[in-house]
């Protein structure tokens, strides 16, 4: 299960912390300039497609319907927008500008419903076709991650405090709560951590919960941690914890059919990796640290993509670029094949 | 340039000195000469009482009992002071006191261990030379207890990483007199002499250490195979360094075939961390505490001087650099030379200082003069008393049997936080409140069989009362005014003698005169 680099990294005009593949093999990146960038990677060379400019703040999340040509995207100002992903210059099919009060962190599409959650502590369900509000659940705390169980009967929400809330799909009754307390720390007055990524094993037997074991807030030092919970009992099975406290968070996870998990970490500037791990192993069987500070990854068939950050991204004071300007950072995306 | 000139002059003077003048005389000559040149008047010699108390606190870690004080003050022999010094240097209280004083300096309240205090005790009982002491501390042999200096600094708590930077800094500060704290990430911003290379080179000796397993303080060393790569956060230029003392030559790192780095392989079963063939710790212990390492010699002399005089010839003690010269460069150079010539003999250096007029000067200003700069050594400086000295002095004064629980409370009230050196007399609200209200202290001032308050309570003669009080607490006789004040209190209507004793004793114990070594 060793990915092989495919070509040079794609360059982006901005940073991105969420990339996803659409069902047609188009790679989408939610940009921190509010745009959604696209590439058609099905051909020999990745072909950039027109950028979609629909959002304010950071574009933060992406979801797609497997059959209908809809893309759902979200932003940090709280908007949720549905648009035709096959169009060159899509206009919104529907839009909920105040889907959440502020940062909308995650969204999924399942069964003709869109689910979103955000910093406002709400989980909301919307009709896929017209965006009408269907369900609402108030958890009262900052929430980060969302995943639907493979049997479609429930979904899970990960919060700031390391809790995983299990919610029944139809009426949204809260069924249970699992705790991975190591993923949170109250350091002085800062609550650090959170369940940053969730991924179910496709056979529905376990749920992978990931984030960081924070050592301190502020700077943020922490060890990446991923815990396997038996599903639906919530019992702890395997786990993997990073070796050094500068390795930070596991930001994104996905399951590779062949029995492995792929994930990305980002810690102190310069730290971070793409890794592939078999649950139960002591260490990942593959790691790539070539591109530092990795925030997201996505998969389409045998293709894998992960987004990272350019080198030398940090520095106190006014760190100037080669031309004497003050450049922003960006998120290169590396493609891989898993032959 | 000036350095070379000085060295030339000193070599000349040195040649003449060793024939004619003792080190103790040299100290006085040089200090007096500078004071004269600067127009600084010098204090008179300390009187018997001041001298007695000072020497006791310095060498025995406590104040003398009233009876001893009484006898000494009455003694007419001309050489009683020299005899006192020799007696205290030879007494069993000397190693115990020095073990504690050096423990405070070297461990800075990071912690303690029975084998470490035992190590210090036996070392000072045997008058172990300073270079041997530092060598053993750096070699960190777990059987000796000396390993504690390093092993304590290799501990980590919960998720905290081991603070290798702090360890490196401490070695620099305590054994070389340089604080390289702000030279870790770049050359020091304000001290030109302190370079990032100095920090990183020193760090290279210690970064492969780890806390070893076992009940005794143990240091484990992993093999050092590579140089350290470092870069200034300002220039971003990368550099490499192997182990190197500040300003010293870089030690080559030998390469061994993989699997053959250990002379003694690690053994989990016996908790043996193994001994690498190339041990940076062994090299550090051989190279750092040597006569040819000027910084080591200078720092040693300076810190020993400080323990008796209350201020280093270079001050602060860990800021030796060309922008912070010694107050008496000729004296420092001379002491360095002589210290080396006497094989780093600590007791010898102490004796020379103790016998000098400079040490025996009074803290009373010369009549009509204003306070001279501290670094003139023209007037004796007040020295901080450690929590341990205060505890010993207060229990001695009050006639209380020292108990561990009480000692712990004193440590909490008077000792600094870890890594805050206890060099200066500091304002302490905590201490003032402790002395005022703590139950343990108040307990010591309750009359108990044989203690001070009980004794005082029985003395019906006011003059005898005052003398006993002042001798027991302040190691001197009361002045006429003080006698008058005591009498006034004692003769107040309805005054219970015991209550008066309590108030008077507390006032003296809480007074500044008691709380410092002057």
């Amino acid at each position, binding site marked *: 299960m060793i990915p092989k680099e495919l070509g040079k990294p794609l360059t982006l005009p901005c940073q991105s912390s969420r990339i996803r593949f659409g069902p047609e093999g188009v790679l989408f990146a939610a940009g921190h300039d509010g745009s959604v960038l696209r590439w058609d990677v099905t051909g020999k060379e990745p072909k950039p497609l027109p950028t979609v400019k629909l959002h304010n703040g950071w574009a933060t999340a992406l979801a797609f319907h497997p059959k209908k040509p809809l893309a759902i995207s979200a932003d940090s100002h709280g908007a949720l927008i549905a648009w035709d992903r096959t169009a060159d210059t899509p206009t919104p099919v529907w839009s909920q500008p105040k889907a959440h009060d502020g940062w909308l962190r995650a969204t999924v599409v399942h069964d003709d419903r869109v689910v979103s959650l955000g910093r406002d502590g709400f989980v909301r369900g919307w009709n896929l076709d017209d965006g009408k509000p269907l369900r609402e659940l108030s958890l009262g705390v*900052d929430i980060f991650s969302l995943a639907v169980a493979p049997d479609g009967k429930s979904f899970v929400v990960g919060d700031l405090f390391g809790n995983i809330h299990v919610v029944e799909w139809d009426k949204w009754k809260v069924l249970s709560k699992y705790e991975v307390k190591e993923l949170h720390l109250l350091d002085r007055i800062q609550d650090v951590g959170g369940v940053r990524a969730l991924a179910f094993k496709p056979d529905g037997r376990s749920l992978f919960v990931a984030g960081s074991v924070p050592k301190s807030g*502020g700077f943020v030092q922490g060890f990446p941690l991923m815990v396997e919970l038996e599903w639906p009992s919530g019992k702890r099975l395997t786990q993997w914890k990073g070796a050094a406290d500068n390795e930070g*968070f596991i930001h994104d996870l996905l399951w590779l059919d062949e029995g492995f998990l792929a994930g990305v970490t980002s810690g102190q500037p310069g730290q971070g990796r793409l890794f592939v791990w078999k649950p139960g192993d002591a260490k990942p069987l593959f790691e790539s640290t070539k591109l530092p500070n990795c925030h997201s990854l996505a998969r389409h068939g045998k293709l894998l993509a992960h987004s990272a950050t350019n080198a030398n*991204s*940090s*520095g106190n004071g006014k760190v100037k670029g080669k031309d004497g300007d003050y450049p922003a950072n960006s998120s290169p995306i590396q493609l891989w094949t898993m032959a | 340039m000036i350095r070379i000139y000085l060295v030339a002059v000193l070599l000349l003077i040195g040649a003449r000195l060793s024939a004619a003048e003792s080190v103790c005389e040299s100290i006085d000559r040089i200090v007096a000469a500078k004071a004269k040149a600067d127009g600084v008047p010098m204090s008179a010699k300390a009187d018997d009482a001041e001298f007695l108390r000072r020497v006791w606190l310095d060498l025995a870690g406590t104040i003398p009992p009233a009876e001893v004080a009484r006898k000494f003050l009455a003694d007419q022999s001309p050489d009683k002071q020299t005899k006192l010094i020799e007696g205290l240097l030879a007494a069993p209280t000397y190693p115990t006191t020095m073990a504690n004083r050096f423990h405070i300096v070297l461990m800075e309240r990071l912690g303690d261990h029975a084998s470490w205090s035992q190590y210090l005790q036996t070392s000072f009982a045997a008058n172990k030379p300073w270079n041997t002491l530092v060598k053993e501390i750096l070699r960190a042999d777990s059987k000796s207890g000396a390993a504690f200096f390093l092993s304590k600094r290799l501990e980590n708590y919960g998720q905290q990483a081991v603070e290798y930077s702090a360890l490196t800094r401490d070695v620099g500060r305590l054994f070389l007199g340089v604080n390289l*704290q702000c030279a870790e990430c770049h050359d020091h911003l304000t001290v030109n002499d302190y370079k990032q290379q100095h920090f990183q080179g020193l760090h290279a000796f210690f970064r492969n250490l780890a806390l070893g397993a076992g009940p005794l303080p143990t240091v484990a060393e992993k093999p050092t195979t590579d140089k350290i790569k470092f870069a200034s956060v300002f220039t971003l230029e990368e550099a490499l360094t192997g182990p190197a003392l500040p300003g010293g030559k870089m030690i080559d790192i030998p390469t061994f075939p993989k699997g053959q780095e250990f002379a003694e392989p690690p053994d989990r079963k016996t908790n043996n961390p193994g001994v690498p063939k190339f041990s940076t710790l062994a090299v550090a212990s051989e190279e750092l505490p040597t006569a040819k390492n000027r910084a080591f010699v200078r720092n040693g002399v300076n810190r020993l001087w400080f323990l008796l005089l209350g201020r280093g010839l270079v001050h602060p003690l860990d800021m030796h650099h060309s922008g912070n010269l010694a107050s008496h460069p000729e004296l420092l150079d001379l002491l360095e030379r002589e210290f080396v010539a006497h094989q780093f003999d600590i007791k010898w250096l102490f004796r020379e200082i103790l016998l000098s007029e400079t040490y025996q000067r009074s803290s009373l200003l010369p009549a009509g003069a204003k306070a001279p700069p501290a670094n003139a050594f023209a007037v004796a400086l007040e020295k901080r008393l450690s929590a341990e000295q205060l505890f010993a002095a207060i229990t001695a004064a009050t006639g209380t049997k020292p108990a561990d629980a009480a000692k712990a409370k004193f440590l909490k009230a008077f000792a600094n936080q870890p890594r805050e050196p206890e*060099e200066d007399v500091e304002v*302490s*609200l905590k201490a003032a409140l402790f002395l005022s209200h703590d139950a343990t202290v108040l307990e010591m001032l309750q009359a108990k069989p044989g203690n001070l308050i009980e004794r005082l309570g029985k003395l019906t003669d006011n003059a005898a009362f005052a003398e006993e009080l002042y001798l027991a607490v302040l190691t001197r006789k009361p002045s006429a005014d003080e006698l008058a004040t005591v009498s006034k209190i004692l003769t107040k209507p309805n005054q219970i003698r015991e209550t008066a004793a309590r108030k008077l004793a507390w006032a003296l114990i809480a007074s500044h005169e008691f709380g410092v070594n002057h």
Partner: protein
Amino acid sequence: MNPNLCTPQDHRLSRRQWLGATGAMALGGLSLPAFAEELKKKRKQVLFVWLDGGMSQLESWDPKPNTTFGGPFRAISTSVPGTHVSELLPQTAKQMHRLAVVRSVSTQDNSHSAGVDRIQRGDPKNRGVVYPYLGSAVANWVGAGDSGLPPYVWIKPGNGGFIDREAGFLGPKFGALALGDGKPPENLIRPKELSMADDLERNELRKLADASYSAGRRKENTEANSFAFDMAEQLQKKLELFDISKLPAKDTQRYGTHDLGRHLLLARRMLEAGVTFVKVTSYGWDTHGDHFNGAASLHPKFDKPFAAMIEDLAERGMLDDILVIAISEFGRTPRINGHLGRDHWPEAWSVAMAGRGIKPGVVEGKTNALGTEVASEPHDIGHLFHTWYKALGIDPKKSKYQNAGQPLPIAHEDMHAVKEVLA
């Protein structure tokens, strides 16, 4: 250890090191206020809120949503039409009509160790002496008043005790009495077995002993020792101040039960009791990594009690007497690093203030659209010190320190007050 970033916590110059580098220190400097009469007119007090580590101006006072460096948060309107702050300060937004914000602050140092000292000392011209922190300086110029408490109280997490290093050349008496976690010092309460009369008498005897000892000797250490006992005596009379459990529940709710909330509430008590200078420190603001989640957690914890404080002070008429300052050692970089954090940024940041002598509801100065530069007249910390002294009625032309016979300016002599924020 990341070679690009110094570890914030232990990269601090100690007073001793500073002395070693800059030469000998003159202790016991006297000051000569030339306007003793003016001092008595109106009370002069300061609340100094120190957010240690560097609060981001882009997530607080100077938001720039939808720009390259603007980050994910929105800007919200405030009680001052046309003025916006970050969505992370919703309560403070409602108090903006009482605040003045300077958005054009540009200072010299991007390190914590030197930066903290330089900001709190006003970064005056180097005279080879160690200048006092603002708290010690104000304690010196204004004195303790009739509060019966030390003039400079510092409420902070962690350890308490008397911190004399902040006094610089003024000498230990002008240090800060630090209340660790807002708790009163240990052993503050006089035990029942000791009567007040006995305590008084024995302290009189102690003072007598000290006077006779120090006659003919150096005085500094004895004075410092007496000062500690005097402070102990004064504090004992003010025990009820420390007990914030006696306050109405609505206060604890509005300020919050987290450290900064409790400490600001205690600060209000201290100010009500007349303490001249109260500093409240919050640590942990140095969000080089995961900054936006960090700010999402931290900023509201400042916002809530700070807004409550402003409201309470206004309600009680105390804003006439008390100068309020909220500040860090610098702001944070517009550029967002790979760990989604912001780094140190003294180039263009903001400081907020309110109260005595300050014009309410104004914003002075601005940064450019991206926040990468000050786009109006830049103001260094020296300018702010001039401003604050003026607000307190202390004239830098007339008041100079006298340190061992050398007159020294109270703030950077080439700088001037920011008149736009003065009432």
